[in-house]
């Protein structure tokens, strides 16, 4: 799961059906894969917002 999350964060264009197959092999179904993808994607969004706006940096 976390390898997938790292790849999504670094370069999502490199993700392939093989990555999804690996997630399925450890028990995630399509809804789980979607949830992982959306949580990781959302946190990439919020990381960028926080850094760009200086949140928590005095």
């Amino acid at each position, binding site marked *: 799961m976390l390898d997938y999350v790292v790849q999504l964060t670094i370069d999502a264009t490199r993700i392939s059906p093989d990555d999804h197959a690996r997630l399925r092999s450890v028990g995630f179904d399509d809804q789980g894969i979607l949830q992982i993808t959306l949580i990781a994607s959302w946190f990439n969004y919020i990381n960028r917002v926080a850094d760009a706006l200086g*949140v928590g940096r005095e």
Partner: protein
Amino acid sequence: MTWIRTVPLAEADEALRNAMAAQQALYPEEYATPVHPTDDGSAGIVASHSLIPGALHHAFAAFGELMSPALPLTRSQHEMITTVVSVTNRCRY
């Protein structure tokens, strides 16, 4: 604290108050205490969106939905994902 103006809770109009309340209602209890609070105690990252209440509501409601216990992932898995994303991005937040 952010590098753009944010709307303090005391000055929030109805749209902003509703957006913030709706977002808070969706989040797990452990999110009740902000990591980087503003002077009025609200979460800095939520307040950073306060100039566009609709974006605040929809952005944070999406994440709240994604943490639903009705979905496959556990809370621990949520936190592992968010931690790994932040570390990979070298996010300072």
